[in-house]
């Protein structure tokens, strides 16, 4: 069944966008201020005139029912993971268990002040310690710091750790290597941390070009940042050789954990030779993505990097003299050493996004070792099955697998036009043939998918794949969902073969249709005009 092929004027479309600032009326309110139970001293006596505000901010004047209706209606203008398939590559949009929301909201977690004395926050510190130990085991690196606020923040921590490591050895290095397939956060982080980016080429098999790496790896290189499996969905089989080259020049090897969902319990960055790893708790360990955060980006490091980890650190002390706080066998403390001779210091306030730790820890406890392995295996199974179905349905003729030659699969006959192969938890297709043969681009395909009821995959990344489409189904989708998605994609291409105009002007059924992004950037309107 094809969705509408022209503008439909749905009820949501008929409802114009009205902001909360355009609702309400002067004098309306939701808030009832608590009673003034202390002396009614005039504000003028408490604050001199030159420090005071004269005009109140123009915040909305609305009743509670108006607020609720406004935001609930707004919410209906969003597509979300709970409602539909969201195969956004590199983002690991797996199911968010509601147990996590329930336990994170327990007052003992949610109303715990970050400066509560450690002896009165033993539950929180025990949870964080346990999470650190679990992440250490999963990554194969001995030391963990939970503090960074997101993946990019973890990357910054990692590059600053690298700087501190070299400085402690009396070395000043200037360059950080990143493959041309890297996430944009990698080079952006490198610059922010005061290093120069040097790009490493990708070989015909989609991995690091070893010759290029050898040519560029010298003693001015501080670090190589790598994702493995990389952003093409390919595991670099030369990883040990890469680690050797990097370590021979005294540099560190950094692991971008965005794709950890492929290998949990199966292969560990520490065992591959990485020195520093960041995790995206919001990806691999299922935080709700919140429309763009919050996230959490803990790091794990090897022994030689450990002295430089951010503060505060959590320490576990064996019980002695009956000191165990909760009748257990150990107590926990937070240590923030000002002298901080070697630590890079702080990356943010307090201890990190604890609310995220609660959720990811609950997830790890729910799944346990076998469950985490099952999650990765199923994520990989689902991605391969979807890829196979797309092959069967002829989709890969128009959207071939990028670097297909690197995906070894002996069962596919040689010379098969729709060559397909194996992937890990995600795969990258190229819309090049579709563009040439069907006259629609990846962008058009994505926009038409919206009418079919799917969130499109990641588009136009990685940059070195023409018209890229990066698909990550995750382990929490059913076979039926994967089948339906594959069929929808086939149908969409059939439709485009008949009439490309349909996709070129899609979507038709969404609350708004294609938006003028160029105009928005040229004349930025980024707040309500009053």
């Amino acid at each position, binding site marked *: 069944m094809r969705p509408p092929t022209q503008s439909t004027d749905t009820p949501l479309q008929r409802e114009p966008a009205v902001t909360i600032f355009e609702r309400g009326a002067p004098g309306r309110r*939701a*808030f009832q201020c608590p009673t003034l139970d*202390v002396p009614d001293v005039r*504000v003028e006596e408490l604050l001199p005139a030159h*420090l*005071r505000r004269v005009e*109140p*901010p123009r*915040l909305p004047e609305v009743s509670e029912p108006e607020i609720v209706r406004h935001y*609930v209606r707004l*919410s209906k203008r*969003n*597509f*979300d993971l*709970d*409602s539909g398939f969201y195969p956004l590559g590199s983002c690991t949009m797996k199911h968010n*268990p509601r*147990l996590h929301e329930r336990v994170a909201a327990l007052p*003992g977690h*949610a109303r715990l*002040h970050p*400066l509560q004395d450690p002896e009165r926050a033993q539950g929180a510190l025990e949870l964080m310690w346990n999470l650190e130990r*679990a992440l250490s085991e*999963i990554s194969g690196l001995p030391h963990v710091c939970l503090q960074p*606020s997101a993946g990019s923040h973890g990357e910054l921590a990692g590059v*600053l750790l690298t700087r501190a490591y070299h400085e402690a050895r009396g070395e000043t290095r200037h360059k950080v290597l990143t493959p041309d397939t890297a996430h944009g956060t990698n080079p*952006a982080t490198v610059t*922010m941390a005061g290093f120069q*980016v040097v790009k490493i080429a990708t070989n015909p098999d989609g991995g690091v070009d070893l010759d290029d790496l050898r040519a560029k790896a010298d003693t001015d290189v501080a670090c190589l940042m790598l994702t493995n499996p990389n952003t093409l969905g390919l*595991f670099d*089989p030369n990883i040990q050789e890469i680690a050797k080259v990097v370590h021979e020049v005294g540099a560190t090897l950094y692991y971008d954990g965005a794709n950890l969902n492929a290998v949990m319990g199966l292969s560990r960055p520490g065992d591959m030779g990485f020195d520093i790893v960041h995790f995206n708790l*919001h990806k691999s360990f299922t935080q709700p*993505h*919140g*429309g*763009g*955060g919050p996230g959490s980006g803990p790091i794990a490091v090897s022994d030689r990097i450990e002295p430089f980890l951010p503060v505060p650190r959590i320490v576990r002390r064996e019980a002695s003299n009956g000191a165990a706080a*909760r009748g257990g066998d150990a107590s926990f403390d937070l240590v923030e050493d000002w002298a901080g001779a070697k630590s890079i*210091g702080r*990356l943010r*306030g307090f201890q990190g*996004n604890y*609310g995220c730790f609660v959720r990811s820890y609950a997830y790890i406890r729910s*799944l346990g*070792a*076998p469950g985490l392995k099952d*999650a990765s295996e199923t994520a990989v199974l689902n991605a391969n*099955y979807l*890829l196979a179905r797309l092959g069967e349905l002829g989709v890969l003729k128009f959207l071939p697998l990028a670097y297909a030659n690197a995906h070894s699969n002996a069962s*596919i006959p040689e010379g098969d036009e729709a060559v397909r192969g194996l992937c*890990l938890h995600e795969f990258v297709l190229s819309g090049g043939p579709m563009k040439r043969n069907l006259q629609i681009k990846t962008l058009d395909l994505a926009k038409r998918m*919206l009418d079919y009821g799917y969130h499109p995959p990641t588009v136009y*990344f990685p940059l070195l794949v023409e018209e890229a489409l990066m698909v990550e189904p995750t382990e929490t989708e059913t*076979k039926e969902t994967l089948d339906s998605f594959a069929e929808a994609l086939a149908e969409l291409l059939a439709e485009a073969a008949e009439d490309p105009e349909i996709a070129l002007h899609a979507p038709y059924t969404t609350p*708004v249709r294609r*938006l003028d992004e160029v105009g*928005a*950037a040229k004349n930025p*309107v*980024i707040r309500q005009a009053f």
Partner: protein
Amino acid sequence: MTQYTSVTDSDLAAMLAAIGVSSVQEIFDRQIPQEVRLGRPLELPDGKSEQEVYEHMRALAAGNVSAEDELCFLGAGMYDHYVPSIVDMLMERSEFLTPYTPYQPEISQGGLQVMFEYQTAICELTGLPVSNASVYEGPSAVASAGYLAKLHNGRKRFVVSAGLHPHTLATLRTYAHGYGIEVVEVPLAGGVTDPSVWAEAIDQDTSAAIFAQPNFYGAVEDAAALSAAAKEAGGEQLVTIAQVDPIVLGVLAPPGECRVDVAVGEGQSLGNRLDYGGPSFGFFAAREDYLRRMPGRIAGETIDVDGRRGFVLTLQTREQHIRREKATSNICTSQALNALAGVVYLSWLGRRGFVELGELLLRRTHYAREELCALDGVSPLHSQPVVREFAVRLDADVAAVRRYCAAAGVNPGADLYALTGREEDRGGLLVAITERRSRADIDTLAQVLGEGVAAERLTTGDAGRGVEVGASA
């Protein structure tokens, strides 16, 4: 199969057949070399049922003394404000909770409009014309503002007030060491940034002049005077940056009216829970000149092909996914859900309520400071005006007094020395007042603290340092 996966035996057979492999194992064997495979199970506990995990998480929660369990006067960056029920209800909606960054604007209008409304609210609070859609949190927002200043003028030094939160100072130093900027700290005099040292420290090599409003010790700074002095000594290219507590902007002059170029801060006060320190959000507002150097996401208004009003992520050429090493920041995921809580909260307070709340905090804080400073062995640490937090000096061992109070169910505030490590902060206690702390609660604090100081008193006689409390700064 786990509780969150769904592959039955018959599914598995069909899927493997379609793929053309005999087992899942084979998929891995063909792609990951044996040498880097983990040939054993992870050493983690086995999985548990939902109710077992719930009980475990509940037991851990019970190992904490939260603001639900004691009378809490802790602040110092995060505060136990009341979060209205509609915030919880809206944050829990799947449509806000479970999508990601609005890469496809046609199906993300809800989230994008929320960002636009949030930006508007932050502009109104700060009196500045542009805001992004949130950054991680407070201290790193200051460090990001510093990076903006470095990109803007290429100068080599930050001059910072010692009145910044110690976590902010530490974070700024960490970042600045990376991007190669020297940090010079200006001490306080009488509880606020010493104006003469401030002016002397700033010159044409100063990239940014950074202070907190109110400062870490609760004192309200003369923001306009600090900014003016910084611009005079450092020229127009210097960037003035203020870390601001947003909840008091109903009563304090907005940074935009004090010649502040960039106002950033911790947004937790605005409808976010304590969560032992996060997640919350950081806000980031600035003058128009800095728009194209802002970090993070920005939502903008536009129209669709049919002329309907809509919203998109805009000015993306600043961002890492487009500009890579030339980006103005490395931020990708920020704090959209927490910023939603912020704008819902501000709508709930509304134009009048926001000011009323600020005035209530002002009056209760003033009352609390007077009550506490009337106690034997307790004196004000400074005499500057305060709005929602104030510092006192105890003539007693602060740790011992805090333990005494804790036994009586009162957390009297933060131990200043433990946070700053500054000798002059020994004996210091930082007390925060929110609208959840009634007069009766404050009276309880005064009684318990008085007893505690009496019990742990270091010396006898007049401990006060003879500072007058008032608005005459």
